[in-house]
């Protein structure tokens, strides 16, 4: 059974069914970038509790399903536009960026490409350098090409090594420039919009597997938490070599985000077997009458 990493998925919005399906499909590790909630927050405390959830409850919840959960920390570009609030979030970030399992500063960058977005993007690039973390860049959905190039220009202006930057949400229009300039290129597989799996296959055929990373970016919108394994299957069917499939759905993500020193294959290869009896509290993911899942190491391999 192949192992997969989904390096961009907003698990706080997903159900336990999703977690079970992901684990069955071979996803061993996930990265949850700090993002917005579909509507803008109005209080800094909402950010604080959200960030705490990413390193706390959500990580614990994932572990109950045999999935190792990492996250990135940052102020997203949409909410950077509320300047007084954004300033408070910037004061909060140092409390979180050094925590275990925080594998990058992100997702940061541009949305409408406003002045405020530019200011907080730059400040967070500096923060990333200060704490030796890679950067995960969210590229805008509108005016994408220009926004993507600008993200890279500014990163370089701040002395970022492109090898430490993952530029996400690429498409056919942006991929060449991103790869040519030495960045990691993330591709989000969304049903109906953005990249579909078929387009992804063509891109890997054309550009090869180097520095290309596939993710689902599944969240509260129409999205598919199994996008990574499904795309891998399609690649195999379409004749892409197994080694290349593994690079774009597992190895490249691991190589990029393990630059943080916070992500290691051992975290899932040597993980203790899932034991829901050990950790469950009263109001937990197991409700009365459900039978806890306890599996031995052999189950993990065969599953």
């Amino acid at each position, binding site marked *: 059974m192949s192992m997969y990493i989904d390096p961009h998925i907003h698990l706080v919005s997903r159900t336990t069914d999703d977690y079970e399906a992901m684990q069955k499909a071979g996803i061993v590790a996930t990265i949850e970038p700090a993002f917005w909630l579909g509507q803008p927050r109005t209080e800094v405390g909402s950010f*604080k509790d959200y*960030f*705490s959830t990413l*390193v*706390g*409850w959500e*990580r*614990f919840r994932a572990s109950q399903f045999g999935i190792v959960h990492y996250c990135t920390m940052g102020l997203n570009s949409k909410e950077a536009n509320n300047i007084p609030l954004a300033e408070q979030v910037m004061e*909060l970030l*140092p*409390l*979180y960026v*050094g*925590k*275990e*399992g925080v594998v990058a500063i992100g997702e940061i960058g541009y949305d409408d490409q406003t002045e405020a977005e530019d200011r907080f993007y730059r400040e967070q690039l500096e923060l990333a350098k200060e*704490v030796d973390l890679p950067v995960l860049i969210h590229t805008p959905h509108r005016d994408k090409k220009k926004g993507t190039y600008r993200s890279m220009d500014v990163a370089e202006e701040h002395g970022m090594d492109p090898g430490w930057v993952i530029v996400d949400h690429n498409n056919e229009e942006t991929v060449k420039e991103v790869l040519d300039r030495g960045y990691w290129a993330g591709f989000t597989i969304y049903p109906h919009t953005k990249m579909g799996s078929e387009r992804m296959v063509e891109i890997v055929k054309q550009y090869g597997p180097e520095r290309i990373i596939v993710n689902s970016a599944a969240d509260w919108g129409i999205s598919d938490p199994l996008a990574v394994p499904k795309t891998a299957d399609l690649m195999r069917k379409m004749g892409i070599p197994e080694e290349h499939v593994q690079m774009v759905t597992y190895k490249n993500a691991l190589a990029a985000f393990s630059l943080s*020193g*916070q992500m290691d294959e051992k975290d899932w290869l040597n993980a203790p077997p899932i034991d829901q*009896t*050990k*950790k*469950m*509290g*009263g*109001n*937990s993911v197991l409700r*009365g009458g459900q039978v806890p899942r306890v599996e031995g190491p052999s189950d993990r391999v065969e599953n």
Partner: protein
Amino acid sequence: MSLFTGVEQAQLTMTQTENFPAFLMTLLQQQADEKSIAWLNQKVEKFKESGSKTGFFLAFSQASRHFSKDLLQISEQKAQEAEKLSKGFEPSFWNVLQTARTYLLLHYPQQKQVWFDAINQLFETADMHEHQALFAALPIMPFQDDLLPRAIDGCRTNVALIFDAIALNNPYPSTYFPEANWNQMVLKAVFMQRPLYRIQNQDSRRNPALAEIASDFAHERWAAGRNVMPELWRLVSPFLNDEFFKDLKKVMSSEDELEKKGGALALYQSDFPPAKGLLADFPNLIHGIESKSITWESIGQEYQQTRL
């Protein structure tokens, strides 16, 4: 705030705070490499000198990059030393990382307002293992009275690692928790099937209300066709009456030998006259109790090892 504890609190405040960090350092030196120790000392120097809260926060979280989560290896002599320095401190249940984090904590300036300004932020933004370190360190922190709401709130967690840090091998709850909160904590430990024998000073905090709660809990479990953890009867034993005696009779008719051990020990330790009569039918269990092979600890351990 502290309601019970003339004696215990006096002992707690006698925690030798000056010697304590030095003791933690000797434990760290046994199990961490020199580079990590140097990192730790450097961080302490830095935030002490600059008074930088951010420096302190970063060091507290980044300690995970330098220290493992291996349990401390504690010799008999070290265990005694620990108990002497701070009553109820059981470092053999601590890991290296939380020891390092506690070392950092104890070097943060201890002026009340400055301290709480930082500590509150740490509590509110902690991840699982940071919470573990913070809650386990409650009994050696300054201003312990003021930490009571924090400790009570911490018990509301669903993460066993965090709950254990407060409830198990920690003298703080028995020293500071009012009865209602104490009872809620113990019941939650039962509910989460945590090893009750690791709750410190529990016998002195037993009370009739908790015995009622425990009995009600047993009835609920039985109604649902589920078994009851044998350590539960420890809570009932001193308050045995006609009602609870019916529960014990049911336990003693169980086919599960471990459940009967719990029932027998509760009966054995009770002054309720009919208890001895019921117990007389189980000479093997009486022998086990008197030869100390049946204790609350052995029952709890067997339950944890074989039933969960």
